[in-house]
């Protein structure tokens, strides 16, 4: 039997810990968060909205996957009560495959913040409300302003959590001698002895969830037809041609 760097007994062969959808979503977040930041800072609000809608699809997918996905992706698989968190902090919890009880809080906080941030962005508006989120037309000027302010605060919170997230990874690497990054890339890890391998959900279920999430993102991008805006093909030419870039 082999041992990890910290001396714990490891199983002889690595197993699939994180499925492909979890890893794709994770690294998309890593790329999208800075891209959203830069596009907003540079005033490229059309691009920011487009990227934000992609983010909406990804977050929606991850939330669905948290309900029906692989065992290490499911909220019910990693969300634990305060007692489990205390045991983990005290160092007398048995090892788990996937998120530990404390890390689970970080996952939920980050996902929840991203979901809130995306939702606020939909209703946000720029200085003159011409460049605005795809659902800003459904709310008043003052609500749109409030959403924009909350959207800015939301990003500060996301930045703080990202720093915490990366600091935890570095701490695990240096102090606990555990590499968390490679398994998130390859998906595979040698688990501690005695832990059952995660149950990986079938690929077609991921495709189904992705289709639902993508449909949601498109529906939001279109302005919630038929109740909000009309479907793009039903809009009168004048309204269809109106484009923020033409009158900003």
């Amino acid at each position, binding site marked *: 039997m082999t041992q990890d760097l910290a001396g714990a007994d490891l199983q002889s062969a690595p197993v699939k810990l994180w499925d492909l959808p979890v890893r794709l979503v994770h690294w998309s977040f890593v790329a999208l968060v800075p891209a959203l930041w830069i596009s907003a*800072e*540079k*005033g490229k*609000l059309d691009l920011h909205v487009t990227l934000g809608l992609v983010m909406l699809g990804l977050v929606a997918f991850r939330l669905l996957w948290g309900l029906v996905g692989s065992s290490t992706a499911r909220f019910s698989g990693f969300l634990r009560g305060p007692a489990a968190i205390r045991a983990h902090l005290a160092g007398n919890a048995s090892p788990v495959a996937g998120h530990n009880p404390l890390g689970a809080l970080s996952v939920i906080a980050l996902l929840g913040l991203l979901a809130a941030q995306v939702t606020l962005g939909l209703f946000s*508006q*720029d*200085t*003159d*409300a*011409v460049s*605005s989120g795809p659902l*800003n*037309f*459904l709310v008043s*000027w003052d609500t*749109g302003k409030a959403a924009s302010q909350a959207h800015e605060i939301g990003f500060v919170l996301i930045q703080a959590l990202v720093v915490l997230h990366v600091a935890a990874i570095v701490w695990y690497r240096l102090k606990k001698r555990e590499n968390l990054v490679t398994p998130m890339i390859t998906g595979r890890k040698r688990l501690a002895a005695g832990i059952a391998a995660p149950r990986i959900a079938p690929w077609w279920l991921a495709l189904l969830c992705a289709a639902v999430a993508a449909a949601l993102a498109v529906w939001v991008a279109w*302005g919630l037809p*038929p109740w*909000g*805006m*009309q479907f793009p093909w039903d809009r*009168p*030419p*004048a*309204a269809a*041609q*109106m484009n923020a870039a*033409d*009158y*900003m």
Partner: protein
Amino acid sequence: MNIFKLAAISSLILPATAMVALAAGPNPAFKARHDNFEKMGKATKGVFDELKKPAPDVKLIQTNSKVIAGAAVKVKGHFPKGTGPEAGVKTEALPVIWERNADFNAAADKLVAASKGFQAAAATGDLAKIGQAAGALGGSCKNCHDTFRKPRS
């Protein structure tokens, strides 16, 4: 302290504080300008929001078109000399407004014309005409913002 002393002291202090407050506070032109643009922005949002809906409220568009036209005529007068960034007040107005004042005034005139055109189109109640005139109105906003307003980056 008798009432006369009090009156004498306040007669000295009150105008002095008022003068200090005026000297320290920004030129009221900044606030008037900001409020006018915000009013126009709110009304414009009202118009474009309606035009996105399946059944736009034409009455609301007409009301907003009057607000926009009323605010548009004030724009030119809201940029007296000394109300640019050099005043040390947070503003998105660029110095080029005063450097190329004739161009700025022409852009402001274009806004006035477009807002009147939009008001007329709104009065007809014809959504196709309203949509077209809204495009022209939006174009006149952009026309000025491109050159004379601080970019977002």
